[in-house]
């Protein structure tokens, strides 16, 4: 599929630069050129495609769908969380809006986990860098973490740990107009442009790390580190990931380095989940509607679910 890029990289490295095939430097440069072209192509296609789908699921519509299907709201919230664009700055209005529409608290919490964690950037990057299998695993296990967390938090009866005004506010009729097909394409185009503007440097760094390890680090060293990765690496990765505030792209060079250094994929994905799903700035935002105790419960349950998933993935892969 990317033969053109392979040939182009061949041409640049061996013909233009006149480097010898099989040497470390030339292999590293070749890897970086090829990977950069391949990854940016995949990213543009994937982010455009998912953004286009996402234009059909603005937060207000998701709220409407969930309020109509309350009996299956919990799994549905996780699924729609993937499709609905989310900004941590919308966390408070989203939570209040869901509650006001009579959507169960479990589903509101589930959405709060799924939406930031599984998104077009995360999926696009994982697919481009690590392939289809890793991206799908992230998607499936992300949905599971979100659903289970929402279910457990609800069972702990969090009602009295949520500020009263959340249950008193009334929402007006939404005055938002449906987008036209052209506007959806524009939305997707703008999204690709804005996201790439934000993440290109991180991706280049990640590819650079990959290229260096590809060319200069012998395979047996990588395998050795992999064998020595301790059993506590998963909880440690999650604990480090929770307070960190980063989107999927910012964390990517670290993930790339970890995986190429031989850290198991489950551990690396758990780290990425913890970083994107939970962060201190988000806790500060949630403080407007939740007591600190509930935020602590929320973070613990999501954190523990991610740790379990990390172990599971390491076991499976």
């Amino acid at each position, binding site marked *: 599929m990317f033969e053109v890029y392979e040939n182009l990289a061949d041409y640049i490295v061996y013909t233009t630069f006149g480097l010898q095939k099989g040497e470390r430097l030339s292999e590293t440069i070749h890897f970086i050129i090829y990977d950069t072209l391949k990854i940016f192509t995949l990213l543009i296609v994937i982010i455009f495609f998912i953004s286009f789908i996402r234009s059909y699921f603005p937060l207000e519509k998701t709220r409407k769908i969930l309020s109509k299907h309350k009996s299956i709201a919990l799994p549905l919230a996780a699924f729609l969380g993937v499709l609905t664009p989310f900004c941590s700055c919308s966390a408070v209005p*989203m939570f209040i809006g869901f509650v*006001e529409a009579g959507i169960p608290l479990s589903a509101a919490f589930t959405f709060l986990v799924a939406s930031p964690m599984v998104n077009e950037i995360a999926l696009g990057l994982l697919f481009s860098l690590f392939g289809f299998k890793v991206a799908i695993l992230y998607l499936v296990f992300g949905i599971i973490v979100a659903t289970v967390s929402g279910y457990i938090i609800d069972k702990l009866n969090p009602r009295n740990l949520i500020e009263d005004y959340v249950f008193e506010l*009334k929402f007006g009729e939404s005055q*938002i107009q449906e987008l036209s097909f052209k506007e959806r394409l524009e939305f997707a185009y703008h999204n690709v442009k804005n996201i790439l503007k934000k993440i290109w440097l991180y991706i280049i760094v990640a590819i650079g790390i990959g290229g260096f390890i590809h060319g200069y680090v012998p395979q047996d060293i990588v395998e050795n580190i992999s064998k020595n990765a301790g059993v506590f690496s998963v909880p440690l990765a999650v604990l480090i990931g929770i307070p960190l505030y980063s989107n999927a792209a910012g964390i990517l060079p670290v993930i790339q380095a970890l995986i190429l250094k031989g850290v198991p994929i489950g551990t690396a994905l758990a780290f990425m989940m913890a970083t994107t799903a939970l962060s201190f700035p988000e806790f500060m935002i949630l403080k*407007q509607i939740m007591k600190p105790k509930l935020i602590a419960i929320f973070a613990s349950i999501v954190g523990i679910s991610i740790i379990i998933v990390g172990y599971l993935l390491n076991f499976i892969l």
Partner: protein
Amino acid sequence: MKEIKIISSSNCGNCELLYNVVSTIVKSKGIDAKVEKVIDVRELAKYGVMRTPLLVVNGKLKHVGTPIPDPQTIEELINQD
């Protein structure tokens, strides 16, 4: 005089951006308007919206969320009735 409200949420970069763009347009084009930034979830609820920022001119909802329109479109949104 027009009343322009940018309804925002805390920690929202795009809200700041819209507020700055609108303020600049109003100033540079000499539009007779008062521009105000409002951070209040009640205001969002009033319009049945959960995303930010909102551009409201004389009580009418003109734009919701991201991406933020280009300055020319924003100027038209402010001027149309």
